[in-house]
């Protein structure tokens, strides 16, 4: 959008644009009203418009797989990965493979965890890292957790390396970056399942496939962060490198990459979090571990046991997140002259000492080596009891809520979405695009949704859209006030942000536990999970946006005699709006992902079809469905970021 549109006087161009927007909007309304008299070709995409994308993709896949022999390449790569997986599997949980020295006693791993946490940030983090491993061992989940971790240990380094190399290439070559950028955009908005189907075709199921899908899924953020980091290296630092006579390689190796350390490590953090999220979901393609257990227990409605596993996954997520973040922000510190070797390397020595001690003790005390299922604690009984009591207690409320939501909200809205002629939906989106970003945005909207119409999955897509719209709306109704309330003082804001940050590290799967517990397996549970998942970024960005408003502006408002409410409405909210919209954008993205994941507890949307495609390993269908979801996300992303950018320009924030 040009800055012209922002002039308060409203020049002719603005006026024309908004008029065109309204015209298209009225056309859309007319199309909707005239639904019953419209020709069938405008109500639903006519058959000649629906193109067999799935068949084309399948043909392409067969060609690439068989004729180009990519299958051999992927199989070879997969075999390499499998060998590494076997090594870590042997070390971590004693799978009978080379080098056959495992499993490492749990106490050794826990003590290494303690020391790493302590070295990175101090005793609080050490309690978290060590404590997580102790919890896992004591609850008798060691084997499952190690199955999960053994994949992350293999997949994360691969992703980090790939990501870094791709990031450097993109930084070196503008052309490569231009090609890579749209690919990354689509990759980051494809739902998890869309990745699984091709992997199943090429590699099959099991840990190997789980690892590879994890690698592919977690690469994009690493590329983004490496590129960002390399771009952000201060100009003078590079010039100083030049003037010191560095060659290109020396400059990259000694100047650029180390100076971009923080961004690169933030990339590492994101890779690891993505890995964990994916590994848990990879249970759908036969990946053993925590995810698979959780899936089984949830399907069997064993709430207590699934809460236990949920806690483990959450602890792992928070621990991995905090450790990598601590690593990213840790600044080097010097030692005074004459410090001894022991002080220099105290953490290393401490780690080795503790591990050896545990290793020796484990030989004599079996409980320090492994904790079997029989010796393990469980808190599932009390949890079940509390959950049962609670469910019975609020049953009237949930029953009523379920009835109310389904009959008065969900079904009417869904029917309305399904009733809309597709031509009207397209016109409506074009009108929105036109109003926000002119012709270009209108075409972008038409393009994305036009392709969805041509994919032949219009009804399913509308159900997905309806779920997301309902969920994000409810999340917004809850999230905005919560965010505003949270932003009012510094202390509250920092606590709220900490909670949001922590919630965001949870793999999406976790959000299903409480809703299934409360509502059972149905539409309400799905919407509930999506609402929870979508509200977090809304709250978070609302707080951040409101906190970022420059102090002088608020002081100016105060000195103008504004009340708290006036300051909020007239100064803080308008200034925070662009940031808040980033939250809305993320919220929509998260909801789309969640809706698809929630498919396995029963939905009738694109997610359900994707599950079917997964079980019948139909690559074409799976990718078409995945792309349909990605296009919805990309369209919203385009609209919101165009709008936010012009708003920011108008506010002089950029």
């Amino acid at each position, binding site marked *: 959008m040009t800055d012209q549109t922002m002039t308060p006087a409203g020049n002719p161009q603005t006026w024309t644009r908004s008029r065109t927007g309204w015209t298209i909007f009225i056309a859309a309304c007319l199309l909707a009203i005239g639904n019953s008299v419209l020709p069938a070709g405008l109500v639903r995409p006519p058959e000649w418009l629906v193109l067999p994308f799935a068949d084309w993709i399948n043909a392409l896949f067969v060609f690439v797989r068989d004729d180009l022999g990519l299958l051999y390449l992927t199989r070879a790569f997969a075999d390499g990965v499998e060998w590494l997986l076997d090594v870590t599997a042997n070390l971590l949980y004693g799978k009978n493979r080379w080098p056959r020295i495992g499993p490492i006693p749990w106490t050794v791993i826990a003590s290494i965890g303690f020391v790493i946490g302590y070295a990175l940030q101090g005793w609080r983090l050490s309690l978290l890292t060590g404590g997580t491993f102790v919890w896992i061992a004591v609850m008798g989940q060691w084997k499952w957790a190690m199955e999960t971790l053994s994949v992350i240990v293999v997949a994360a380094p691969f992703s980090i390396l790939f990501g870094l190399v791709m990031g450097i290439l993109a930084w070196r070559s503008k052309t490569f970056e231009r090609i890579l950028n749209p690919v990354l955009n689509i990759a980051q908005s494809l739902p998890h399942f869309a990745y699984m189907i091709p992997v199943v075709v090429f590699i099959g199921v099991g840990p190997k496939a789980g690892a590879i899908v994890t690698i592919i899924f977690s690469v994009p953020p690493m590329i983004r962060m490496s590129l960002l980091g390399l771009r952000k290296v201060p100009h003078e630092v590079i010039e100083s490198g030049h003037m010191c*006579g560095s*060659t290109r390689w020396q400059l990259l190796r000694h100047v650029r990459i*180390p*100076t971009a350390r923080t961004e690169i490590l933030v990339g590492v953090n994101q890779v690891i979090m993505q890995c964990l999220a994916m590994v848990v979901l990879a249970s759908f393609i036969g990946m053993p571990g925590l995810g698979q257990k959780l899936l089984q227990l949830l399907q069997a409605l064993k709430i207590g046991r699934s809460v236990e596993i949920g806690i483990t996954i959450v602890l792992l997520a928070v621990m991995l997140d905090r450790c990598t973040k601590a690593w990213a922000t840790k600044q080097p510190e010097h030692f005074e002259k004459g410090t001894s070797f022991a002080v220099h390397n105290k953490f290393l020595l401490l780690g080795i000492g503790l591990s050896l001690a545990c290793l020796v003790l484990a030989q004599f005390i079996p409980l320090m080596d492994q904790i079997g299922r029989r010796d393990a604690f469980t808190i599932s009984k009390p949890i079940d009891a509390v959950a049962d009591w609670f469910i019975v207690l609020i049953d009237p409320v949930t029953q009523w809520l379920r009835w109310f939501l389904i009959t008065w909200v969900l079904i009417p809205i869904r029917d309305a979405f399904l009733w809309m002629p597709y031509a009207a939906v397209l016109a409506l989106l074009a009108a929105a695009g036109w109003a926000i970003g002119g012709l270009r945005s209108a075409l972008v909207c038409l393009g994305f949704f036009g392709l969805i119409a041509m994919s032949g999955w219009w009804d399913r897509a509308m159900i997905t859209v309806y779920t997301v719209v309902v969920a994000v709306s409810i999340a917004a109704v809850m999230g905005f006030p919560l965010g505003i309330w949270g932003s009012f003082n510094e202390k509250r804001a920092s606590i709220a942000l900490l909670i949001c940050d922590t919630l965001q590290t949870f793999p999406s799967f976790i959000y299903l536990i409480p809703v299934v517990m409360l509502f059972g397996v149905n539409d309400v549970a799905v919407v509930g999970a999506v609402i929870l998942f979508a509200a977090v970024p809304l709250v978070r960005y609302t707080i951040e946006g409101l906190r970022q408003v420059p102090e002088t502006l608020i002081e100016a408002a105060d000195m103008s005699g504004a009340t708290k409410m006036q300051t909020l409405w007239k100064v803080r909210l308008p200034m925070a709006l662009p940031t808040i919209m980033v939250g809305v954008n993320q919220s929509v993205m998260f909801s789309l992902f969640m809706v698809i994941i929630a498919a396995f507890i029963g939905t009738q949307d694109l997610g359900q079809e994707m599950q079917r495609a997964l079980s019948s390993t139909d690559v074409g269908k799976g990718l078409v469905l995945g792309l349909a979801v990605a296009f919805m996300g990309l369209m919203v992303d385009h609209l919101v970021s165009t709008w936010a950018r012009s708003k920011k320009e108008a506010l002089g924030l950029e």
Partner: protein
Amino acid sequence: MTAATPVISCKNVWKLFGANPEQYLKSLSGNPGFDEIRQAGYIAAVRDVSLDIAKGEMLVIMGLSGSGKSTFVRCLSRLIDITGGEVKVEGQNIGEMSEKELIDLRRNKMGMVFQSFGLLPHRTVLDNVAFPLEMRGQDRHERRARALEVIELVGLSGREDYFPRELSGGQQQRVGIARSLAIEPDIWFLDEPFSALDPLIRREMQDEFLRLQEMLGKTIVFITHDFDEALRLADRIAIMKDGVVEQCDTPDQIVLNPATEYVAKFTEEIEKSRVVHAGVLAHEVNGHSLTGDPVGDKQTIAELARLLVNDSRDFLPVANNTGTLVGAMNRQEALDVLLGAGS
């Protein structure tokens, strides 16, 4: 190379930013103004600059922000490729050098200090200072010994193991200076080295810098936007505006005879007597009878103020530091400078 050959010599150096600057420069006839070039969609950072820098000389390039001074110094070290003209360093055209030759030149002949220091955040003071030595492949031991030497020279002994962020701004710039000196360069570029520092620290660093220069006697190109700093340090000052060197002369001449209105505006506020030296005002003796003690040619008029006011002689003898008579100074002329009259 004889003493007369300049260390750095620029001829008609141009630097334009824009879509296709080389072609545009070729199409230019005459010498268009800054705005004219801007209208054609190009930014003229350096316009037709020609100047020579002699061995051991300190040239200060002075200009306000956007005057092209930083770009110009980057043209001299080829951190930026120039659009037209040529830059010769010790007789070699650096524009024609291969990447390897250029790297060799920087590894052995040039040092540069940056405004915001340009230190590597992940390396200790010692490793930062040793960085250029590491780049040219010296072994660890030699590197360390030499780095410690320069660290001592800039007064940072005992902080070798600190990281840049643990140091104050002044200390960080000392590290920057030490690093630029580690390879014992012949040519020393300083790009606003003290601009990011507090006024008090800046003064201290200038003294430190003068001390270093007295010891080392390098050829120096010093960039600043601070006219006082320029007057204090320079052998010669080049004043830049919109990419053009308005005047390039000694401090005395710049304050006494500003070449353009722009330069005159700078000198207006300056107390000339603090800048002008007796030697500059010394004329040929021409038969005047000179009596009494001579004044030193390196003394400023301000330093001589009491003498000038109290003395009754019309002409004062001026001698250099070996005691040789260099000329006669008209006391009235000197008093005019002191009182700011006749400007």
